[in-house]
């Protein structure tokens, strides 16, 4: 059998392909994005980026009711957006297999909060799978689809950042074609709101069946070491109840402990867990996120467990953290050099040539309050700009700016990217116009979903599969919402950007500036594709006035003599530094030869 080194996300994509998934949808979000990007490579799978997670979920729900095997992917906050269908779908139940990937981000590597989505699944009464390595990421997809079909329920698979982005060896299989299940329109089943009372008992009956299933499924397994099944707890015996990638850390740190490895964490196997707890003197509960398993054990009456009180609820787990919490193995003395030497942080920053830079430079100079949104432009909150003052969630910029304005803060600007505007900004803009706002909105239109790695969206003109698609006309969309003052500017023309935003602020009515220019990371923006040349500094004209340094371009550094120098490998020919140079000392390299 061939084994390949795959990331958790690549393995999920492979698993979906092997298990006969025919339709897959989602919205990009770290750490889930690579699943659909990889799944899209298989011609047998109809994989797509949707406008947002709610739409992605509903499209997947329809495809599953229609009889296909379906995968839907999103990061954990995406499920907040899709919570509406997620809570209702289980009442009807599915037809074809439906697996939802919810990618949690303990440690908030790329998120604005920590959120343990097992609790959303608990609310929705949906079973939860938690794989613990790349192989299981692949295997649990087929397992989940079969579970989904057997119990007519959507299934959630919870991954975490470390699981999604770690790589391990995975044994590959072939694709099994699964034919479409027959779909019989059934009003009493699929029209949930009208017939909800008929469906409600079915949800509980299903959960009861799943509780029994949890007791016997092989993905909940006990590795007996410190004790034996049914034995009384020996003195000093240690058992661990764990799930997800934390299982690997436990194996590393506590090789002598018995381990109850839960692959299905909702519903939990209560009888087996009680038996396991009784067989050990001490039981550690090691789970990333909230005390989901621990609370259940406590409710069952277990008194010999140690969980969040030792391991903590905040942030990501690691072998070191678990070792420190139980102090079972002596660890090498941990040196902490940061107390003795300036360990400068290195926060992320706008890329060389990024079109957002001119906008934030203007906003900084105007000293306006900026309600921001989710995307690369959250970095506008960092030095040197510090010109994004609130950021909460997808699409929140417009509503927040509206509220600030109502609270008397007139000089407020909302700023949102094109993908985020499509995702959740449109209803907010319609509302702002409807309710008489005079807000200024800047849409950073870079033709892609930038932060997650250049995924196309309805305004980009191509699909995930790379096929041409109708391109959403942002200007027409904004005008249709009732905005009369719309300006479109080239985002690299800094004077135009400044003029447009200043003009917008003077309007007493809703005003939108679309700052347009593709993300420099898109393939079509390579210098060779644009027949452009990198820029250079002519030292004979340079007066060392340092104006170009105020562009904050990472490609501009200083020579030993104090002249600016542009890294010609990094330069994107965005021209902004040349625009600010008062002595025309900066220009394309070929014009200087």
């Amino acid at each position, binding site marked *: 059998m061939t084994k390949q080194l795959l990331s958790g996300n690549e393995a999920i994509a492979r698993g979906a392909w092997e298990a006969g998934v025919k339709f897959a949808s989602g919205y990009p979000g770290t750490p889930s994005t690579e699943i659909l990007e990889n799944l899209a490579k298989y011609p047998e799978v109809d994989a797509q980026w949707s406008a947002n997670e709610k739409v992605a979920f509903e499209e997947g729900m329809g495809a599953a009711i229609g009889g296909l095997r379906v995968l839907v992917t999103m990061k954990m906050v995406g499920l907040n957006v899709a919570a509406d269908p997620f809570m209702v779908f289980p009442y009807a139940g599915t037809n074809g297999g439906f697996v939802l990937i919810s990618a949690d981000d303990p440690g908030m590597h790329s998120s604005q909060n920590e959120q343990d989505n097992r609790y959303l699944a608990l609310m929705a009464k949906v079973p939860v799978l938690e794989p613990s390595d790349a192989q299981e990421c692949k295997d649990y997809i087929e397992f989940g689809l079969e579970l989904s079909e057997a119990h007519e329920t959507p299934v959630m698979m919870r991954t975490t950042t470390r699981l999604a982005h770690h790589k391990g060896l995975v044994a590959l299989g072939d694709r099994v074609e699964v034919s479409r299940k027959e779909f019989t329109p059934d009003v009493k089943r699929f029209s949930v709101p009208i017939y909800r009372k008929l469906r409600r008992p079915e949800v509980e009956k299903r959960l009861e069946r799943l509780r029994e299933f949890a007791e016997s499924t092989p993905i909940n397994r006990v590795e007996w070491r410190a004790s034996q099944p049914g034995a009384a707890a020996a003195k000093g015996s240690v058992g661990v109840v764990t799930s997800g990638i934390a299982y690997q*850390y436990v194996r590393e740190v506590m090789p002598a402990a018995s381990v109850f490895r839960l692959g299905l964490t909702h519903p939990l196997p209560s009888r087996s867990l009680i038996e396991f707890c009784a067989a050990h003197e001490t039981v550690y509960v090691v789970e990333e996120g909230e005390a989901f398993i621990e609370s259940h054990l406590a409710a069952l009456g277990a008194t010999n467990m140690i969980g969040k009180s030792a391991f903590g609820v905040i942030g990501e787990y690691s072998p070191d953290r678990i070792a420190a919490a139980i102090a079972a193995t002596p660890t*090498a003395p941990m040196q902490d050099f940061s107390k003795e030497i300036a360990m*400068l942080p*290195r926060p*992320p920053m706008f890329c060389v040539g990024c079109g957002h830079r001119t906008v934030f430079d203007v906003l900084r100079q105007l000293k306006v309050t900026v309600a921001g949104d989710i995307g*690369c432009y959250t970095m506008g909150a960092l030095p040197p700009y510090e010109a994004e003052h609130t950021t909460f969630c997808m699409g929140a910029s417009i509503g927040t700016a509206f509220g600030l304005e109502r609270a008397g803060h007139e000089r407020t600007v909302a700023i949102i990217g094109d993908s985020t505007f499509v995702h959740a900004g449109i209803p907010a803009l319609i509302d702002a116009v409807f309710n008489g706002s005079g807000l200024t909105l800047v849409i950073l239109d870079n033709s892609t979903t930038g932060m997650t790695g250049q995924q196309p969206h309805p305004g980009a003109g191509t699909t995930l599969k790379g096929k041409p698609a109708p391109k959403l006309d942002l200007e027409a969309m904004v005008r249709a919402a009732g905005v009369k003052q719309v300006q479109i500017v080239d985002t690299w023309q800094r004077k135009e950007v400044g003029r447009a935003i200043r003009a917008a602020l003077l309007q007493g009515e809703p005003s939108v500036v679309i700052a347009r220019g593709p993300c420099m990371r898109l393939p079509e923006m390579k210098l060779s594709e644009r027949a452009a040349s990198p820029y250079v500094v002519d030292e004979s004209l340079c007066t060392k006035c340092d104006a170009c340094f105020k562009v904050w371009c990472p490609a501009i550094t200083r020579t030993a003599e104090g002249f600016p120098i542009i890294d010609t490998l990094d330069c994107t020919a965005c021209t902004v530094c040349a625009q600010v140079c008062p002595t025309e000392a900066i220009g394309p390299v070929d014009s200087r030869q």
Partner: protein
Amino acid sequence: MDTTNLIFAGVGGQGVLLIAELTAQTAVRAGHDVKQTEVHGVSQRGGSVESHVRFGDANAVHSPLVRAGQADVVVGLEKLEGLRYADFLNPVTGSLLVNDHEIIPGSVANAAEKYPHHAMDFLRHKGLRVVELPASRCAKDLGDGRMANVIMVGALSALLALPEEDWLETLKERIPAKHREANLRAFQAGRRLSTDFGSPFGLSGMQPVAGGHRDSGPLSPAKGDNHD
């Protein structure tokens, strides 16, 4: 064999993840169980980037994360980033292999003044083995400064018990044809650099240099951890 623990660190855009992947794939080719970890997303926008690679016997590598004090080698593509992960090194047998190159953080006020230019001397003073290699300059000499990462992985290859032919096969498979020859040259240049700055060592068969000032003379062997 013991598990070998490696950490790769650098700045977004330097190619940290590529050389971590090259190393992990080479270990797979050589028949080892391998785990690797990295974090995507916001951290790639010019921020700190790290990747852990662990390899050893079949089914013996559980956690993808290297534990503090147990890294055999930390490969730093930039000095501040090498410093940042130096506390992961095994204090006795670990080596920091660092590109003698500084990138001033762009979004920190007065970063040029605050930058710890003396970081490597500081670490040597702490008793750590530090090997500074002029990878960026060497890459420029070879025609493309961006190949510093491949030079560094070439230097690393001379320190690990992975067969050279497996490295070369992995490089040939992973690097696009257009850049392949140049990168193979960079890899070999890195192997030579590593030898020039100290005798090559393997992960087994040599005794660690005990105590003392360990920034000169032959490199001590990086020994795998023993917790498996």
